[in-house]
């Protein structure tokens, strides 16, 4: 059947069946290469998307639930100020997730930065729990994200 939804700010039509997971439709029909379906049970975060503004696992979500929803993936943020600053801060500090964790850690960082300029440690840890990657030490991630958000705040205030 055909459904309509918004993907990264653009209205889209997809042809889906009841057997498809949302991640498979997003990768297969819309070339969303930031996503990967590794664990298929919502643990690794490789398939993390923002659904109506909040992080969800697209691998445990049937495609038919995408209908009339607003989906954002990392691709939506590639050209944003948030992405550029967070990404350069992560590079500088050596925050380097493996391929499975890369999508989730970056998407969560952008999500947190857009949500608040002073996220609490609890908020960051809560969001971080949605990703799994042994390559990143949580404390290092939190420090670096805070520093990136501080830079972002400075850039926003600069006329």
């Amino acid at each position, binding site marked *: 059947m055909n459904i309509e939804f918004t993907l990264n700010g653009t209205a889209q039509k997809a042809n889906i069946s009841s057997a498809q997971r949302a991640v498979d439709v997003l990768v297969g029909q819309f070339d969303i290469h930031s996503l990967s379906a590794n664990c298929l049970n919502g643990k690794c975060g490789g398939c993390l998307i923002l659904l109506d503004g909040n992080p969800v696992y697209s691998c445990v979500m049937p495609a038919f*639930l995408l209908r009339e929803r607003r989906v954002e993936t990392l691709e939506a943020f590639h050209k944003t100020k948030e992405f550029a600053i967070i990404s350069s801060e992560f590079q500088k500090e050596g925050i380097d997730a493996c391929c499975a964790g890369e999508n989730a850690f970056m998407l969560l960082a952008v999500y947190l930065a857009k949500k608040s300029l002073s996220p609490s440690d609890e908020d960051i840890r809560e969001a971080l729990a949605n990703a799994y990657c042994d390559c990143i030490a949580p404390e290092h991630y939190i420090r670096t994200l805070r520093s990136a958000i501080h830079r972002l705040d400075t850039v926003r205030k600069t006329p």
Partner: protein
Amino acid sequence: MNLSEIHYPRSVQEFLALVEKEKQLRIIAGATTFGIEQRTRYLSFEPAIACIHYIPELSSLHKTERMISIGAACTLASLEHIYPFDRAQARDLLRSIGTSAVRELATIGGHIMYPKRFLALWALLASLDAEVEFRSPSKTTIKNIWYLSDQDGLPNVEPNMLLSRVRVPLQSLDHLVIRRIGAGIFPEGDGGCLVSTASIDRRSVANFKLVIAGARAFRDYEAEQRIASSPFPILNKTIQSATRQYSESLRKSGFWNTDVLLPLIGQALQDLQRTRI
């Protein structure tokens, strides 16, 4: 690969008409539970699917003077700041369910209607005397959530009845103890949850409930009455008498591990005894 027909009812009436038409219907709002159950690449369902996420009535939250009314399609994430989850212990229990990305998909209806076991919030809702409202083509039924367990304490959910709302009566919670037991409580784990709640009214205990739920649900009305009718602060002999009653009923159930649960019940009763009002 089985393909199902997908329906998106826009109202409860439309949904109920669908229930009458489709004999094998799977109701889906949030999808976490089956997402975890189905590990294969392609999902498989009954021949027809009713996606109730798009029924506004089922996604709304109402607060009155006497209760919080939660639509069955409300996500667990949307409950974080309302009663009883505005209490730290209850919020911790809510947050123990998956991660925030899971709770953004999981719904309270799916949580309560899980057919294989009682999930994390069940014992808390039962201890608060939550009511569940079901709609069927012919009637609307309101039951105490406890009636979703059968005589043996096993889950007893009725297929093709639409759980429309969950109503949690507002009450002062002077005592709230939540203990997680065993391994994972959601949804494949073998663990459970012990919840003890009470309000204290004019120097006597009112509304005392102690519920244990996991693979089965347990509650002892007689022991609860012994506590509920007693003056506050509760005398040691009342606590001992209630503990003996719990010990007997746990043994009689032939299911629960008395050696594990009795000390936890004892701790909950001591906590109640020490409650400051």
